[in-house]
């Protein structure tokens, strides 16, 4: 469809002829220009925007990482001052975690969940748009602290008090951290509730929970983790904000505040957060590996339950980040034990992926390379994680580069590689052309080599006693050689990332000359592959009735009497052609954008001048009010039913209306073929 053909051209609006310009209460029309992107409520476009923004922040965080590595390439690095270094590594961590990997996962969740469960859209399309805009305004807000806040936050990504207090971090960096993450958190919370409802409620007929693709399952677990973990960090951030802006006494030890309270709250959130990072990737490779092994996923139910188990156990281990903080030997022992056993469900996953590959016919497309790379690299990180979980051992390891090695192996090796694989896998579905396989493979190998060169040596220097978060180290401690290697490695990663961007550009340029990939270029298994590529705006012409796990595959293949797989339908026969017209779609709206713009204003206001906060509050209020008054459906399409116009705060408020949004959509689900 035309809409998705210009995915990256967010700012090119020449073509747009919008009859009804942005004005008070004027309803945006669907279209193709930039205005359409601003007002869209289509989960696919929102997903794409998440993806583009996430990649942007990947480069930002990556440049910060390169600065770190340059500084540490040799002893007594002089490239950054200590002050700037501390800001750079803090913002690197924050950017990568909250502005890159979480939104990239959100991109997949938004784009794929409705497709995989056979829905027209998410449950609350307008709230979905709201989530995106709030998230991006938080992200931009956070980064503007470089310009207007006197530098980035300088307290480390977990921002331990009291170092994060006003007395020890007087610049505005931490204020931006606190408020920026709160804004981004609201976005994730709304989106979590939205996607949970979507999965539970919007499934196509026959799509029982245990027929859902593993990816959808893992994303569902992720959303639950978000739903329950975000409020905890919200509390922590509020307390810190009150301390910094309004002189409260939460973390000031002088007056009886307890710094460990922050640590508990942060890590109660923080540990589930790491599974929020990894589970989407686990889901993605659970789609890729079966597809390119030509086998169903091995042990579907074990896969699902181990994912749930990981999500569940992730709540009981947080204090393994606090083994040396003086929480007492009993707590240490308890958390040490609970942590170890997370290896069990994770191991199940690893072995089940191997078993899927076992006896399969492995076709090494780029996506498959990334997926298999993920399995191997994550295992390395997971195993170093197990060595941290032994509390006595961790008292040597904690806050050294050995930890840095661990978490980059799990996050980059497990999370980022998997998501990259996902990009290659779903690219044709999203953009209508495949990424170039040759350059894809170059991308993979360069990244793999660079990644291991960067983070492998950190195990060594870490065990040799190199502390993390140090802006320089002295010569003579044995750190020189491996740090240089790591720096070289990081530039190889950067090269790999550049190759990826080149590939994106080249594949797009070449797309016209190559045959279109068709609905199902990989001979894949789940429902999204029965749609034309790129996905039409209305998703399904008719909502499919699901009869089995791997529904799409089963529409293509059956078994003969010898239990051998035989094709029963070609892709073209089985796929939908996207020709349906008049499918009722949720109407676009500008109000999510406007509402989201108010929040950073409130943030700046709290920091600099309360009047600004009043303006921001007014804007937000106006947006909520207008949102509530805006007819849910475009006046043209007479689908609306009576609406009350109460309006409320952004957490729960718009739900009522947005719900109405969705109902016509589902009502349009003709309930079968």
């Amino acid at each position, binding site marked *: 469809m035309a809409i998705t053909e210009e995915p990256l051209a967010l700012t090119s609006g020449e073509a747009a002829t919008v009859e009804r310009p942005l004005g008070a209460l004027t309803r945006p029309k669907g279209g193709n220009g930039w205005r359409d992107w601003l007002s869209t409520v289509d989960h696919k476009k929102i997903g794409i925007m998440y993806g583009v923004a996430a990649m942007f922040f990947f480069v930002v965080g990556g440049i910060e990482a390169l600065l770190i590595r340059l500084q540490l390439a040799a002893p007594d690095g002089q490239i950054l001052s200590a002050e700037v270094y501390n800001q750079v590594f803090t913002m690197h961590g924050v950017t990568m975690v909250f502005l890159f990997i979480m939104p990239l996962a959100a991109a997949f969740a938004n784009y794929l969940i409705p497709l995989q469960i056979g829905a027209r859209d998410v449950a609350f399309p307008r709230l979905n748009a709201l989530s995106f805009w709030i998230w991006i305004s938080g992200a931009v807000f956070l980064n503007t602290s470089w310009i207007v806040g006197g530098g980035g936050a300088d307290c480390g990504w977990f921002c331990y008090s009291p170092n994060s207090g006003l007395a020890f971090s007087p610049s505005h960096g931490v204020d931006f951290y606190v408020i920026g993450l709160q804004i981004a958190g609201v976005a994730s919370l709304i989106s979590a509730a939205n996607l949970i409802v979507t999965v539970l409620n919007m499934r196509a007929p026959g799509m029982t929970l245990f027929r859902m693709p593993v990816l959808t399952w893992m994303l569902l677990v992720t959303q639950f983790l978000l739903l329950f973990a975000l409020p905890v960090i919200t509390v922590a951030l509020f307390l810190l904000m009150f301390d910094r802006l309004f002189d409260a006494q939460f973390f000031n030890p002088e007056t009886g505040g307890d710094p460990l309270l922050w640590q508990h709250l942060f890590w109660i959130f923080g540990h589930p957060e790491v599974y929020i990072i990894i589970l989407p990737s686990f889901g993605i490779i659970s789609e890729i590996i079966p597809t390119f092994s030509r086998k169903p996923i091995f042990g579907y139910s074990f896969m699902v339950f181990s994912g749930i188990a990981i999500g569940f156990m992730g709540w009981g281990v947080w204090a393994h980040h606090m083994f040396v903080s*003086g929480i007492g030997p009993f707590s240490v022992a308890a958390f040490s034990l609970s942590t170890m056993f997370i290896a069990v469900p994770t191991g199940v996953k690893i072995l089940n992926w*191997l078993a899927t590959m076992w006896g399969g016919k492995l076709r090494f497309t780029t996506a498959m390379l990334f997926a298999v790379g993920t399995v191997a690299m994550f295992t390395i990180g997971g195993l170093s994680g197990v*060595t941290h979980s032994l509390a006595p*051992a961790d008292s040597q390891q904690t806050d050294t580069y050995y930890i840095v090695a661990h978490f980059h192996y799990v996050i980059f090796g497990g999370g980022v590689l998997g998501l990259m694989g996902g990009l290659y896998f779903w690219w044709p579905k999203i953009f209508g052309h495949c990424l170039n396989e040759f350059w894809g493979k170059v991308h993979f190998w360069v990244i793999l080599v660079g990644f291991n060169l960067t983070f492998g040596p950190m195990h060594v220097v870490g065990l040799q006693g190199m502390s993390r*978060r140090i802006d320089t180290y002295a010569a003579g401690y044995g750190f020189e050689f*491996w740090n240089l290697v790591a720096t070289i490695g990081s530039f190889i990663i950067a090269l790999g990332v550049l190759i990826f961007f080149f590939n994106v550009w080249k594949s797009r340029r070449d797309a016209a000359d190559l045959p279109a990939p068709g609905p199902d270029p990989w001979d894949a298994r789940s429902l999204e592959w029965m749609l034309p590529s790129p996905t039409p705006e209305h998703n399904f012409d008719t909502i499919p009735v699901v009869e089995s796990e791997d529904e799409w595959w089963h529409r293509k293949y059956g078994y003969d009497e010898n239990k051998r797989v035989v094709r029963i339908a070609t892709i073209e026969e089985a796929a939908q052609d996207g020709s349906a017209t008049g499918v009722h779609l949720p109407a676009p709206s500008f109000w999510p954008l406007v509402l989201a713009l108010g929040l950073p204003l409130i943030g700046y206001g709290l920091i600099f001048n309360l009047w600004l906060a009043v303006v921001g509050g007014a804007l937000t209020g106006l947006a909520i009010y207008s949102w509530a008054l805006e007819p849910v459906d475009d006046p043209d399409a007479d689908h609306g039913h009576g609406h009350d116009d109460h309006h409320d705060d952004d957490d729960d408020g718009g739900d009522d209306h947005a719900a109405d949004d969705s109902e016509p959509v589902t009502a349009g689900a003709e309930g079968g073929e």
Partner: protein
Amino acid sequence: MATTQTERLTVSDKSNFWRRIPGAGVVALLGLTLAGCASDAELDTLKPESGTADEIYGLVLPVFIVAGLVLVLICGAVLWLALKNRVPTYEGDDEFPEQVSHNNTLEITWTIVPAVIMVIIAVLTIVTHISINKDEAAAIEIEVDGEARMWDPTIVVVGQQWWWEYRYYLDEFDLDASMLEDPRDLPPADIVTSGQFAIPTGVEVDLVVTSRDVIHSHWIPRLNGKRDAVPGRFSPWKIEADDPGVYFGQCTEFCGLSHSRMRMQAIAMDEADFQQWIDMQMSPATFGEELQPYVASYRAGEPATVSEDASGVLRGLDTFVAQCASCHLVDGLNDLDYDGAEVVSGSAPNLTHFANNTTFAGAIFDLYNDDGTFNRDDLAAWIRNPNDVKANFANDLADGELPRGMPNRNLTERQISDVIDFLETLGPRPSDERIAATEVE
């Protein structure tokens, strides 16, 4: 179908040992680096030199081996499967592999096996954990002011931006918990050192770790793991050294600007040396003959004026009193009117026996050169403007803001040189042996 699957799995695990070479390579590489580079890595966690660190090492080693094996197994399997089962394309290939979708026995097995491994590791962990948390401190006999007494070796370790203070209470047989309420207002200690601290060998020394500002972490890797210094808390920890020597440490909890430049050294001494050290530290600063009259007049509350052509040391003492004594304590000089330092943490290093140290400013500079001479250059740079050589927040302060770190006192070159002359008298000079030992090659 299920059984074939099982068989094949087991067979391959045995017959393809050589495929694991890549994984084994990683382990070998790791081993190599550990063995190879360790000799000059002063902070190496894998070269324990004390009871506790040994025990931790004894736990880590088998677990590393298990983890290494799992790693080799998994990564080997990945590689092996990839090489064995790959096909170039599905184009024109109608043959599907056997569609095995699950095998409960197998899956339960690989749920249970790792669980069992983890149970074993858990038991080892708990045993070690209990053992290293046991308080086995025993009192030792020391002599204070010529009197023998039993001392439960305990040191109060106080972190602040960005150096460590060590406080010894020799009077108390047991350091009373009620004495420890406010790290900014600790009872006067018998010995106070900064950056370096002495411990007797062969006995367990209890540490009580706390902080005066933000969280720091005290870590001497060869002697034990870390313990965070949390303001408002007094966390128990312990260290122990088998042999005399100098053991390097580093603050490991991010504590702001100069976190990377916050180091420390434990100096383990045998009984005799330790006693000597105590005697030395217990005595007030020893000023040369020449300084005595000035010190006496200063202590009397009316410092004598020092003329321009007095000796460097005397001029240095005068400058010190004027510029430095508001923060630094020199026992025997300004102890009568000293009331804490005008910095955020309320304390600056005690300089009474400064020249007896071998490092300064968070143990990042050597106080003596390789040839054994006093390191005037680094010290001069430090006094000229500390922020230049160790980043801090002590200059250009906003109204009412207290410095964090040592400020630039804008001394002239001549004053700097004088002050250094004076500081050098705050001995006694450490032995050449010790000077050599504290150096990092």
